[in-house]
């Protein structure tokens, strides 16, 4: 009987776990790492990006996103939407073609792979015969033309990938009809480009690498015209009226040819090398767009003078007398223009590190702010901080401050509008703050599927930096040729690595923000709706407390501007603490109710009163024998490590990816490697002599019972790398004297954990076992006030175990071991609230833990029992694990590449994921038409595929 009851209890808990926890990776924010192909469907109004790791991502209106992953571990080299269909075709660099579709399912669309195909040549033929170099998705929506390296064109019926052998255009057929006098007739080379006549779908132009272009009639299966260009061909464009063909070449020239002319020699109407005289680089893609009653737009990428500007990544836009060379900061992958009713409205450019959209209708061609695909890594991300449930007031003020910063953007709406976003409005306003290497803090709206930039804070203005001098160096001068214009925000070069942001803490109720950086600087900022000129008061804090006999060999302190600085509306710094030695800040917290900021480095920690602008406490935690920390190569070591790690990541991510089905091979390879080079690990108990035992890992403010069980007092807790916890009792003057009387702190407790593992988190649990609320949370009626009658408990989370102590007399009550059991260590920890999916009114607090193995664990509070665990990040992905942040409601973010956050959810109730619907285009006129070429009507809008079939990069 007893056993049954017990069993019943367990299943009840299991059921509850199912109602509370569930793991999903929901959406990827940011810009895809290493994009390799771009596609666009004018009928669906969707753009598609393929990456080198084999992912395919579709984007439409903000919130409309789809993602797919090829099973093959190969780069996507081309993406083509089937005109007027919901299908798209991808070509991978292993020469396989894949058919994807957007299928409706329960009122939502899903991206599904529905077929794959690899060309098979005649037996014995070399692989180049079937190596696909160009793809044309025919406007009938039923045919694919595949040009190959061997110069053949294969015709395939889709979606079933049935080869129509009788229609193939073999190299011999073409070569036989080439005029005798054509210089390159012996070797036409590969098929570089395939284009359809916009007004006659039976005509396609076949462009061969050697330069020859042949207009081919698909119905009659014969060549109609030969265009004998002699330069190496890069791309071909058929103008909208079907009268001209424009070809671009590897010497930086482009030519315009008339279609249908009888005399071949007169065909070449105009040839030009736009940046000529000296040798130029190839024009990799050229597009000409007509306008209503005006000169056409001519757009081309590349063509720069080889010697002087060969390293620039440019797209030139020429319209009438206006001529601009848009200068991007990374390599151009491809570009297109979104469908518009008459004049071209915008230019969408995919470069390696960002997506840039230029408004072509507004004077000056400003950039349109992208609502997604933002390059998070415009400067490398150094830290992140998430704040859930932002009060509306603060939200609006941040938006207002941000709006003043984004005035240089175009006012035009986002031009890509496909699909419907059916996701419900986000339940709350969430902010994600990212700190960057150049001292910038970006504020992102992380409430929904689109990570939208709200506001950008630069902390560099407080300091003197080298960048001040050459600010105007990059500005274009009058009469410069080519007429460059810098576009895009990706700028990986930091002027001064000391500016890097390491820790951020924002109080959402008071609008106070504190950020800390690499050179031991801690700024306290206040949200101000007006611009203000003010001096930032700097205070140097000596964390060594008179310990002598060492020299700090790391970087120097930042040089503070002494004159008043004009700060724009937004977060304005008013106080600055500079640690001495200027080691990187490793822990930071702010208590807005008490107006205190606590900060820690590898040398110690301090407490700063930002109302009175003075220091309350300095504690040196340094072990005097710890030379490594004393001399401070930490920052240097770290940065080298980091850069190495990132470059390795880059290599690793490039092709080899880590998809599950490759694990076996990887394991085998690992085994082989082991036999070659054994790696040794030392087994030794930790001792106080280890390096960086004094490094402060966590700081925590709590109003709790520190000295006796009847009076709760403010307290500050600090945990170090050496497994030590310090507790300080704070005495705050009464509110009316807060400005004059000093805040005092004195040490009340010190706990040295026997296992000496780094302390990564400290939480005080109230009488009900619930974590104490955040400062001002109770004052704003947003949290239940903590239970101050029962006894409080202290939860210390080290890398190895979780331990609960009683308060005020500290004695161990219970613990949960992690490392001793499964060898994993805590890397990230957060407190989260999990609501039940079944009833509105039930929820539990829990600890969310990420281990160095990349597993997520949920640990119950206050009984610290393991609830569930899910594998989340590969354990080799060190920077992914290090970048993880948790929200207060069981979600989290981590970097899957330098430019992308993966969002995950552990909660059943809070789930932010794309829910969208894409309707099939209404022009389904050719649904049941047999695949023939004659019956098509020339009135159809047939521009769809035009930009897609030239994947120049």
């Amino acid at each position, binding site marked *: 009987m007893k056993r049954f009851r017990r069993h019943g209890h367990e299943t009840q808990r299991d059921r509850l776990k199912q109602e509370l926890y569930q793991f999903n990776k929901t959406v990827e924010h940011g810009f895809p790492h290493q994009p390799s192909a771009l596609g666009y469907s004018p009928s669906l109004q969707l753009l598609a990006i393929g990456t080198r790791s084999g992912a395919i991502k579709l984007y439409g209106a903000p919130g409309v996103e789809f993602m797919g992953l090829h099973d093959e571990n190969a780069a996507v080299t081309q993406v083509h939407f089937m005109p007027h269909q919901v299908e798209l075709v991808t070509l991978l660099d292993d020469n396989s073609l894949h058919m994807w579709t957007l299928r409706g399912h329960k009122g939502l669309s899903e991206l599904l792979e529905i077929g794959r195909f690899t060309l098979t040549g005649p037996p014995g033929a070399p692989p180049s015969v079937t190596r696909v170099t160009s793809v044309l998705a025919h406007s009938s929506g039923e045919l694919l033309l595949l040009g190959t390296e061997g110069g053949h064109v294969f015709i395939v019926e889709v979606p079933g990938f049935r080869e129509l052998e009788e229609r193939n255009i073999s190299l011999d057929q073409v070569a036989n009809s080439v005029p005798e006098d054509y210089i390159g007739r012996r070797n036409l080379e590969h098929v570089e480009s395939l284009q359809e006549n916009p007004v006659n779908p039976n005509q396609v132009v076949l462009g061969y690498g050697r330069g020859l272009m042949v207009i081919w009639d698909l119905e009659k299966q014969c060549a109609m015209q030969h265009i004998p260009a002699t330069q190496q061909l890069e791309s071909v464009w058929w103008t909208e009226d079907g009268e001209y063909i424009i070809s671009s070449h590897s010497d930086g020239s482009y030519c315009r040819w008339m279609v249908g002319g009888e005399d071949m020699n007169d065909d070449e109407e105009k040839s030009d090398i736009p940046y000529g005289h000296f040798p130029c680089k190839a024009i990799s893609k050229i597009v000409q767009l007509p306008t209503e009653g005006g000169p056409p737009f001519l757009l081309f990428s590349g063509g720069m003078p080889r010697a002087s500007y060969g390293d620039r990544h440019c797209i030139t836009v020429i319209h009438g007398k206006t001529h601009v060379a848009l200068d991007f900061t990374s390599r151009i992958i491809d570009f297109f223009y979104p469908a518009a009713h008459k004049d071209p409205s915008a230019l969408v450019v995919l470069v390696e590190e960002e997506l840039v959209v230029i408004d072509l209708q507004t004077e000056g061609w400003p950039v349109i702010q992208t609502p997604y695909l933002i390059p998070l890594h415009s400067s490398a991300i150094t830290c992140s901080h998430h704040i859930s449930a932002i009060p509306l007031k603060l939200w609006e003020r941040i938006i207002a401050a941000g709006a003043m910063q984004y005035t240089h953007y175009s006012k035009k709406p986002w031009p890509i509008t496909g699909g419907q976003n059916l996701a419900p409005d986000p339940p709350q306003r969430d902010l994600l703050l990212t700190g960057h290497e150049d001292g910038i803090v970006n504020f992102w709206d992380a409430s929904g599927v689109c990570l939208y930039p709200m506001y950008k804070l630069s902390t560099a203005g407080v300091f003197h930096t080298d960048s001040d001098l050459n600010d105007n160096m990059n500005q274009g001068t009058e009469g410069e040729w080519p007429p460059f214009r810098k576009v895009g925000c990706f700028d990986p070069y930091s002027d001064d690595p000391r500016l890097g942001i390491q820790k951020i803490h924002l109080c959402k109720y008071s609008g106070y923000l504190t950020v800390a950086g690499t050179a031991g600087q801690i700024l306290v900022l206040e949200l101000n709706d007006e611009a203000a000129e003010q001096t930032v008061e700097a205070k140097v804090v000596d964390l060594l407390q008179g310990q002598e006999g060492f020299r700090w060999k790391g970087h120097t302190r930042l040089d503070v501007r002494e004159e008043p600085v004009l700060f724009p509306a937004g977060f304005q710094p008013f106080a600055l603490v500079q640690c001495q030695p200027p080691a990187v800040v490793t822990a930071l917290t702010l208590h807005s109710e008490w107006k205190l900021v606590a900060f820690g480095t590898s040398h110690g920690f301090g407490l700063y009163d930002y109302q009175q602008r003075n220091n309350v406490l300095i504690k040196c935690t340094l*072990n005097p024998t710890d030379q490594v920390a004393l001399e401070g190569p930490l920052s240097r070591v770290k940065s080298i490590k980091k850069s190495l790690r990132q470059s390795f990541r880059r290599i690793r991510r490039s092709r080899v990816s880590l998809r599950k089905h490759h694990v076996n091979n990887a394991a085998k390879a690992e085994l082989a490697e082991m036999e070659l080079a054994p*790696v040794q690990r030392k087994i030794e108990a930790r001792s106080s002599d280890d390096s960086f035992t004094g490094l402060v890992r966590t700081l925590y403010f709590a109003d709790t019972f520190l000295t006796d069980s009847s009076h709760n007092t403010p307290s500050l807790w600090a945990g170090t790398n050496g497994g030590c916890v310090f507790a300080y009792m704070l005495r705050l003057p009464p509110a009316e004297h807060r400005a004059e009387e*000093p805040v005092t702190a004195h040490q009340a*407790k010190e*706990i040295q954990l026997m296992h000496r593992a780094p302390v990564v988190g400290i939480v005080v649990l109230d009488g009900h076992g619930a974590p104490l609320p955040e400062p001002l949370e109770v004052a704003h009626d947003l949290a239940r006030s903590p239970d101050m009658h029962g006894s409080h408990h202290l939860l210390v989370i080290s890398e190895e175990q979780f*331990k609960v102590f009683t308060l005020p007399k500290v004695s161990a009550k219970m613990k949960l071991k992690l490392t001793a059991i499964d060898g994993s260590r805590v890397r990230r920890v957060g407190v989260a609230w999990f609501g039940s999916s079944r009833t509105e009114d039930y929820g539990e607090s829990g600890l969310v833990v990420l281990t160095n193995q990349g597993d997520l664990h949920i640990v119950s509070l206050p009984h610290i029992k393991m609830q569930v665990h899910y594998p989340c990040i590969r354990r080799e992905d060190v920077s992914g694990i290090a970048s993880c942040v948790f929200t207060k409601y069981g979600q989290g973010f981590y970097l899957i590449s330098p430019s992308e956050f993966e969002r995950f959810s552990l909660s059943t109730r809070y789930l932010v994921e794309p829910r969208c619907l894409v309707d099939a285009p209404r022009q389904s006129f050719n649904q049941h038409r047999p695949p023939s070429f004659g019956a098509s009507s020339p009135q159809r809008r047939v521009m769809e595929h035009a930009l897609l079939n030239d994947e120049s990069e």
Partner: protein
Amino acid sequence: MSRPQSRIGIKLHQHVIEVKSKFEAEYRRFALKRNSHGGFQEFYHLLQSLHLIPGVEVLLGYADIHGDLLPINNDDNFHKAVSSANPLLRIIITKKEDEPEVFGTNSLQRRKKGLGLTGLRTATIGSTHSRHKPSLLIGQPQDFRQISSIIDVDILPESHRRVRLHKHGTHKPLGFYIRDGVSVRVTPQGVEKVPGVFISRLVRGGLAETTGLLGVNDEILEVNGIDVVGKSLDQVTDMMVANSHNLIVTVKPSNQRNNVTHRVTKSSGSVGSAGSSGSARDSPSPAAQSNPITASNSIAEGDSEDEEDDCDLIMENDSLLTHQVINSNLRDSHDLRPLPQSISLPNSMAASMISNHNGNSEESLREDGNIISL
């Protein structure tokens, strides 16, 4: 007690040791000059006379700083005991015919907690005599401390060995390295190569080497009872470090010739003790520079899992001295006085002041891994 007083006390006790001896239920307290004491015999007779038990055959033991009860039976270990007293020396006297005290690791702690020792004794402390075999008399340990043992011989396959390493407060490092390797397993499908973790190196003079129970190329199968199959080298490393205070590794020795066979299960204990050859005298004792453990407080070197909780060093400062930045610099320099060798009485304020502000003394205090709850 205020600080100046305690400082005077410290000076005094640099030359005098406090002895507190216990025989059955009786205590005697007396002072002994640190430099002018004689040898073991003299001390033995002094105790006999103080306890009014002349002629009674007794065994002497003392509590060392790690909470271990160690014997005093010759001049050497008597001097050792005296030098480690600072200032208190706890002596425990037992009649020879009584059930002898269990000397060795954690003995005081266990007794205090009332834990039964019978189960553990045969398994872990091979050198004590067995209750069930009174005929087999094993001599008292001669100033030895157990540093390792072979355990669970009766339940493990003969080819495996489960070794327990006792990392006391000694400064001796565990002293071994592990590496990835390939293990050959015989399965029904045939011979299979699987990844495994192996000992790659033993540090000279380290605990692992001195035990003689672990060898290079031994395969590590379990760490504290957890199978390491499927775990990465880093995971196994972290598990071992996390368990370093009481590390139990199950290995498959590369040299299979010295295996314990089941036929000699009875003597399994002595196999363990044969390996335990490290002596407290060899290891640099931290006793001379460490703080004392006062009798009224528990002495704990928790090495069993249940007791590890008590190992955290907790210092509470209830006297709430004002600690302001303005004068903290001053105060700190003030407190950096020469090493306070001793604290005569548990005094929360004095102890925490020292530990809070005096780097050096704090270090020595922590390294010993003792608990002080004040």
